[in-house]
């Protein structure tokens, strides 16, 4: 008979949590450096959230607009991030993007081409030039497949359908991670010399989201508990257009491409309201502006009966629509029985991306915990207060690689940190308490309550009283954490996962709301109707760190631009 505390131990140099674009790119870099690598992922290999990315990957190749270069890319990213980004990260992104894209092509990705046979680039919101390299409207899929192939043919070991429940750290140094193999229904401990968190965002914290199942902010909560600093937690990007009706598909993304191809927004009175909010750029203004305008229309009673506004592309004609937006056509046809060539779409903003996350050193992607690295959506600092479309996929490649390189360099010098077995037993106790608790409450309704109050109170337009309502809701949910539980075993037990994720969601939610309350200004995606202006005093990052069981909040000034970038990132108020 197996005992309660049974687990198997694996050893590796570098452990990577997450098999999205960032995790896989890091795995390639670390194996190339000669380290042993394990990639742990909650979902099957190749299913990570990154497959959903549509639009493209931003890199200043200048194939269509030769004027484009890394400086312009830097300026676009830094300025649209409303001066909250870390200049060094933005610089690395802008400079390395072309190399990473060409590298992806050498790995086998097949981009759409220009007539001269170069990589084709399309325009996107707030990018000065046509900069997004793309593969139809399935860029993320191609990126994942290419990296997945590369990793599958390398020495890296894939541990998929494995949920990490704890990152083990000792005295500010990382030692390993612990989790459940869902397929085997067993516990596993992975000892490692360095660890990269590439676990994606926290969109699932909200009721209406374009994010996949995995976006529960696990990596953030786990690293936080292991001692890492979280930053910019309040910065959540809303995509202006998500599906609204039927309720079952609420939140699914309607690509920016629809507006790019000339789609127009109307309220229920048939008014093209963007003319009022943004007479110049109209529907193609930055995401936060458009999202806020749509939201205003809805709350001021000019929305549709389902709580959205109309997006109309019919004037383009059936042929054009089918050619340029085939998957949008399919999506509406399949899910909503709406023929977008004949009917208007109903859309409303949907949670899309989390700019905040784990604070890292821009040169190495290492966190304040030694040996703990972060990359991708889980890390923070690059996008500041607003992310440009297409910059995320670039982020995954540039910083995924950087994290892989520095984590393997660290692993080669570092030693395996020893720790006491009691840590593991404690964690087993914690996890098992969810399944060994006969009178436990079902976690699902609690998660629903949390997600509902987040969507309701921490939305596009925030204010002090709403935020405090959310904070109260979180506080009243927190004590219930110890009562939740489900029946069943460790093998593919969705209820158990819900318990674990609820713990992580509550953690992220609390910090997110606290940050939002503290930031008494409006900047990028964070808009306070009680403080509608940007304030220079808040050109700071809000940081959180766990100190002996207490959340400690602090402010850190955004690093000043060095001389060679001063002109590019000038703040014009």
């Amino acid at each position, binding site marked *: 008979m197996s005992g309660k505390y049974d687990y198997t131990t694996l050893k590796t140099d570098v452990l990577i949590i997450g098999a999205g674009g960032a995790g896989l790119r890091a795995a390639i870099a670390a194996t190339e450096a000669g380290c042993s690598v394990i990639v742990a992922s909650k979902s099957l290999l190749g299913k990570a959230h990154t497959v959903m990315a549509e639009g493209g990957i931003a890199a200043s190749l200048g194939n269509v607009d030769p004027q484009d270069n890394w400086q312009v890319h830097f300026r676009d990213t830094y300025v649209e991030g409303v001066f909250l980004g870390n200049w060094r990260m933005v610089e690395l992104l802008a400079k390395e993007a072309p190399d990473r894209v060409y590298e992806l092509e050498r790995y*086998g990705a097949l981009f759409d081409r220009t007539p001269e046979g170069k990589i084709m680039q399309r325009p996107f919101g707030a990018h000065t030039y046509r900069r997004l390299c793309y593969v139809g409207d399935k860029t993320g899929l191609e990126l994942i497949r290419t990296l997945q192939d590369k990793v599958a043919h390398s020495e890296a070991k894939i541990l998929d359908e494995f949920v990490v429940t704890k990152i083990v750290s000792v005295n500010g140094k990382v030692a390993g991670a612990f989790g459940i193999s869902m397929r085997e229904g067993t516990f596993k401990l992975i000892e490692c010399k360095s660890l990269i968190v590439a676990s994606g965002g926290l969109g699932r914290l909200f009721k209406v989201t374009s994010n996949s199942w995995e976006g529960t902010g696990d990596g953030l909560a786990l690293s936080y508990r292991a001692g890492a600093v979280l930053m910019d937690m309040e910065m959540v990007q809303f995509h202006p257009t998500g599906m609204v009706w039927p309720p079952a598909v609420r939140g699914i993304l309607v690509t920016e491409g629809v507006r790019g191809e000339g789609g127009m927004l109307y309220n229920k009175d048939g008014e093209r309201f963007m003319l009022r909010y943004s007479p110049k750029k109209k529907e193609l203004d930055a995401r936060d502006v458009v999202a806020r305008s749509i939201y205003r229309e809805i709350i001021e009673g000019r929305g549709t009966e389902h709580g959205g506004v109309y997006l109309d592309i019919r004037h383009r004609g059936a042929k054009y629509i089918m050619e340029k937006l085939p998957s949008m056509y399919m999506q509406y046809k399949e899910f909503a029985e709406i023929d977008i060539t004949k009917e208007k779409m109903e859309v409303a903003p949907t949670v899309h991306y989390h700019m905040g996350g784990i604070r890292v050193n821009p040169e190495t992607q290492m966190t304040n915990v030694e040996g703990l690295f972060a990359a991708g959506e889980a890390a923070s600092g690059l996008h500041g207060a607003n992310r440009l479309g297409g910059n995320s996929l670039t982020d995954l490649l540039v910083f995924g690689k950087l994290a892989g390189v520095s984590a393997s360099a660290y692993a080669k010098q570092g030693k395996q940190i020893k720790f006491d077995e009691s840590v593991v037993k404690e964690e087993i106790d914690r996890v098992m308490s969810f399944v060994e608790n006969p009178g436990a409450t079902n976690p699902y309704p609690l998660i629903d309550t949390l997600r509902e109050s987040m969507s309701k109170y921490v939305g596009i337009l925030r204010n002090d009283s709403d935020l405090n309502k959310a904070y109260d809701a979180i506080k009243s949910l927190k004590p219930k954490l110890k009562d939740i539980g489900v029946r069943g075993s460790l093998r593919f037990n969705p209820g158990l996962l819900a318990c674990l994720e609820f713990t992580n969601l509550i953690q992220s939610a609390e910090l997110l709301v606290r940050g939002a309350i503290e930031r008494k200004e409006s900047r990028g995606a964070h808009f306070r109707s009680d403080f509608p202006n940007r304030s220079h005093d808040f050109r700071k990052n809000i940081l959180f760190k766990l100190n002996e069981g207490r959340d400690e909040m602090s402010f850190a000034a955004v690093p000043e631009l060095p001389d060679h970038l001063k002109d590019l990132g000038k703040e014009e108020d």
Partner: protein
Amino acid sequence: MQEVKIRIRRSEPAVSNEVRYQEFTVPVGEGMVVLDAVHYIQNNIDPTLSVRWNCKAARCGSCSAEIDGMPKLMCKTRMDTLGKEITINPIKAYPVVKDLVTDVSHNYEIAKKIPPFTPKEGLKEPWTMMQIDVTRSKEFRTCIECFLCQDVCHVIREHQSNYFGPKHVVKIAALDLHPLDSIDRSELLHHDGGLGYCDITKCCQNVCPEEIRITDNAIIPEKERIVDHAYDPIGLLIKKVKRRKW
């Protein structure tokens, strides 16, 4: 609100041999898909009901199952296209792990056997490729690895052989048709891949949610490439001559 009866196959082979069909009654709202119904059961009736899903937007290919006997994506199948009584089975071609979750790891082993993209030598960087050369491969690159085609293929489902299966032929076609790729994987497909077992009966093409024309555009062209080097005497001759670079 309407109600629908859903029968789901429940089992956990690692624990017991018991297999039972459990019936749930689920209220159906507008636009609901099968995956929503399964989630309803998880949230309100039985949180231990296992199902694999991820995107709920028909983009990741996780939620494959057999709905009333037809392999489909649960998140792409609307409840109003089905009757009042629905049966959901896990995909049958692969061993069940628990309830609706199956072990598809065999596919990842096959994927390792397929030689990765290998560019021609001496290419000038950055590479140039023409749009006319990339379009054919692109169709296959939309594969979301849902394994529905593998499930419905009788060679995989009902027989034992070394046949890789349609999904992997699609992958091989995607690599072979890359204009700058230097290897021909049809030889591998002929010998280790057992493409000869496919009898082009096109079930795979019928179920693909990405509407890839698997048999017409991937399997038959690969079969024809195999003919070139394994059967056709003239083709062989041409190949020999070409190799000698006359």
